[in-house]
């Protein structure tokens, strides 16, 4: 029997599917030069879907529905909203992207992977979870290699596919072992079995390691981060933005749910491992970001480092920890989308992607320069932008849980971060173009970009100043884990 709760629990997914159908029907009838407008349709549709879900699809007390496949709670709901927001912004950024914007398939693939992400955030069952992860990944493999005839893009797509296939196989092996020795794939049942002590912890830890491989790839934790810089550099910029934000956040959604719900009963053993992973991830990401000359690679390594910061909240394994992870991801998602959006807007006009090409940007387009300032200072963790508050919350959670050393590592790392983020801003604000004729090289913003970037900048500032509502939503989401 299909109840209204079941319906509400997958309302956003139904709406996404509707938009996808609509695109399939409408797109062939539009002329080539009007196909770009599918982006408006996608973005508008996703915003409408967000509003409708918010009005009619809000979760009540957490329950498991649809035959134990889907968990209907605030955690999932909050992440869904984040993903759909990221999807809408990405669709707008697609529109003026060469070789991407005028092809309806791009938007369709985006929606398909969005569907997968939404399901990742709510999966209560390992089988469901695996299906969701694959639904997310496969469209993204295609999108990463979407630029036909571009060697780098093809390489990016292929590399992403190989890494993704390998790690997800390892994870699947882990899932099957879990089923082997527990007889269930239900995450919540697993939790109670671990609590009752009816499963051996030794074997569980082995399985855990296998699962971490798969999720570590998704969220790009060192040593599973190798794909990130190459893939970000090669794939179309908006796709890279989507990969580094929504896809990473989806990975964290699964990570948080799995580890907070199913495995907390033998926490000290894996939290320490995670703490070490977090420390290594931050340090490696930041150190490798230092020598980068390509802006997309720089952001790629910085996004590796940010996975490390967010992991501190997971390590803390408290409600504040979970809330701080969710908050961190929200702030990071808006910030990094903004950063990639600026890179896209810049390279659309200039075709350049090196950091030194950004010389004189603040004169060529003061608005773009200011947005870059906001994005990079937020990444560096400076107020009044989202990154600052997010970092403070994560560090606060770490200290509360007694991981003072990890917080100190995090702080040392954010100092490195400040250095290379400011370095980029130095090009934007201080250096000039070789001929000092910036007024002849203005960078116009097309309408979809102007809208997307303006919304993102406002979002980054709002998260950083009026942080109470975001935090209470994060907190409500985190409460569902305990």
């Amino acid at each position, binding site marked *: 029997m299909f109840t209204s709760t079941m319906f509400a629990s997958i309302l956003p997914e139904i709406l996404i599917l509707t938009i996808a159908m609509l695109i399939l029907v409408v797109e062939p009838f539009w002329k080539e030069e009007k196909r770009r407008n599918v982006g408006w349709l996608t973005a508008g549709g996703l915003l409408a879907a967000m509003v409708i879900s918010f009005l009619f699809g809000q979760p009540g007390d957490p329950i498991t529905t649809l035959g134990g496949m889907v968990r209907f709670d605030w955690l999932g709901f909050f992440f869904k909203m984040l993903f759909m927001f990221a999807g809408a912004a990405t669709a707008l950024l697609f529109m003026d992207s060469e070789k991407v914007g005028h092809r309806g398939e791009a938007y369709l693939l985006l929606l398909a992977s969005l569907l997968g992400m939404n399901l990742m955030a709510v999966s209560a069952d390992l089988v469901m979870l695996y299906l969701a992860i694959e639904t997310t990944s496969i469209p993204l493999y295609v999108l990463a290699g979407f630029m036909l005839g571009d060697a780098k893009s093809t390489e990016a797509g292929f590399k992403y596919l190989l890494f993704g296939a390998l790690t997800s196989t390892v994870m699947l092996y882990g899932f099957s072992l879990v089923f082997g020795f527990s007889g269930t794939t239900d995450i919540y049942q697993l939790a109670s079995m671990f609590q009752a002590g009816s499963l051996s912890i030794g074997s569980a830890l082995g399985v855990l390691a296998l699962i971490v491989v798969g999720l570590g790839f998704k969220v790009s934790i060192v040593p599973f981060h190798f794909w990130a810089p190459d893939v970000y550099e090669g794939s179309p910029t908006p796709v890279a933005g989507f990969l580094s934000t929504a896809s990473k956040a989806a990975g964290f959604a699964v990570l948080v749910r799995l580890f907070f719900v199913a495995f907390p009963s033998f926490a000290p053993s894996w939290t320490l491992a995670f703490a070490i992973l977090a420390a290594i991830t931050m340090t490696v990401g930041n150190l490798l970001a230092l020598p980068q000359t390509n802006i997309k690679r720089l952001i790629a390594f910085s996004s590796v480092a940010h996975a490390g910061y967010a992991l501190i909240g997971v390590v803390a394994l408290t409600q504040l920890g979970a809330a701080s992870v969710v908050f961190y991801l929200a702030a990071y998602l808006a910030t990094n989308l903004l950063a990639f959006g600026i890179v896209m807007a810049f390279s659309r006009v200039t075709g350049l992607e090196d950091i030194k090409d950004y010389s004189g940007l603040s004169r060529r387009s003061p608005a773009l320069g200011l947005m870059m300032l906001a994005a990079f200072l937020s990444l560096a963790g400076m107020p009044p932008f989202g990154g600052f508050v997010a970092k403070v*919350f994560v560090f606060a959670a770490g200290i509360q849980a007694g991981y003072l050393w990890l917080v100190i590592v995090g702080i040392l790392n954010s100092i490195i971060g400040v250095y290379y983020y400011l370095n980029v801003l130095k090009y934007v604000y201080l250096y000039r173009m070789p001929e000092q004729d910036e007024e002849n090289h203005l960078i116009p913003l097309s309408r979809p970009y102007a809208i997307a970037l303006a919304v993102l900048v406002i979002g980054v500032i709002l998260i950083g100043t009026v942080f109470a509502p975001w935090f209470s939503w994060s907190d409500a989401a985190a409460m569902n884990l305990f």
Partner: protein
Amino acid sequence: MNFPVLSIITFIPMVAAAIMLLMPAQRKNETRAVALAAATLALILSIWVYFNYDQATAGYQFIERYNWLPALGISLYFGVDGMSTPLVMLTGVVMFTGVLISWGDDDKHVMAGIQDRPREFFAFLFILASGVFGVFVSLDLFMLFFFYEIAVFPMYLLIAIWGWVQTREYAAMKLTLYLFIGSVVSLVGVLAMFWVQYQNTGLLTFDMLQMEKAGFSQAFQYIWFLPVFLGFAVLGGIWPFHNWSPDGHVAAPTAVSMFHAGVLMKLGAFAALRVGVMLLPEGAKQWSWLIMIFAGVAVVYGAYIAFVQMDLKYMIGFSSVSHMGLVMLGFSTLNRAGLTGAGVQMFSHGVMTALFFAITGMIYDRSHTRQIPELGGMSKIMPFATVGFIIGGLVSMGMPGFSGFVAEFPIFMGVWRVQWLVAVIASISIIITAAYIMRNIRQVFFGDMPAKLEGHMTDVTILDKVAITTLCLLMIIIGLFPSFMVPMVEKGVENILRLLGGA
């Protein structure tokens, strides 16, 4: 709820910055007008606060409180006491005069002020000013920290973009890294305090008045006092973490130097006092000897290094280190005289050094050199600025009748009571200061004008004169009528002494 004057003061610059950024870039004079209007408004309100602070009741006044994030006990909690009220006014004054100085003179020989992208310049400067106001009025530790960081990062851009071409990149990065490292070290301490107070009292709050009663254990205070105090004191230019400061001064454009030395360094000292000394009093008692040594070295060493400088801005930069050392020295005494002197010194030095940097900037804009031997005879060309510099110099030397004396005398009295030897050694700095100030006045203002400069020099503008007059008047008023400021600072000091237990 009364008129929310403190939050208006704090957010005026921020709002003005937003308005300016939305204005077209070519509208330079309109941008400047908005800046001046906002600065004037902030100045008037801060003066209003100063005169309406009720000294009879003392304590924290003009309190405003809005819950910001109840889940973690973060609130927008503003209020001022005798210690911070003068500093709020100081910020208003420096902001006002800073805008006047930066207005600019389009004369081809002069090119004073900010000609390149004034819109961005004033916007960043005002964001910084908002941060500074926010720190001085915040009674919530989280918000204090929030504003503290806001005050730090615009410095990078202000120095890197509009600074002196030769050293600006280096100096801006050095300054930012120093300050950022200092602030994150303090942040760890602040978060540790937050959780320990939660364990002790069960209250989840960043309210500093509440945290004063948290009952931090002695061991905790001994461990965390130094990181917290020194982390903030980096911005106060404490030796041996002062190195960023003179470099920053030299590289910064005039108005930013004024802000930097006039207000930002006070920010560090103030935060060190409010968070370090007031929340961890036992730690302060334990470590005051170390702070005293650091400060004592800063006072003498800073003065000596200033003495040997040939670059006018480096000289003033190191003299700032020396004078801020006196503030720290006052803190380290932990007694009434020392703390009161330190409070007045913060204000006095802020005004004085803003004046110095303003006049140096005027000279540099016209002569394009800051080397003391290459300058001379300025008194004939710019008599008004000369008088201003001399008054500033007298304050710097601690002459009676000027604010410097009112500030420095109690500090030395306080130090004497704790350790007479330090007072004797530190007083050497007064002689050195007198020497380099006198030498400088003689050479730059009354010496012969080098042939190279003949004909290039013009007098300062009317706006510059307004700025100089404002700053000089304040120093003379405090010098002649110490009751204008000392009793107010004493009210703040009493509160600190209460926390330190007795005395």
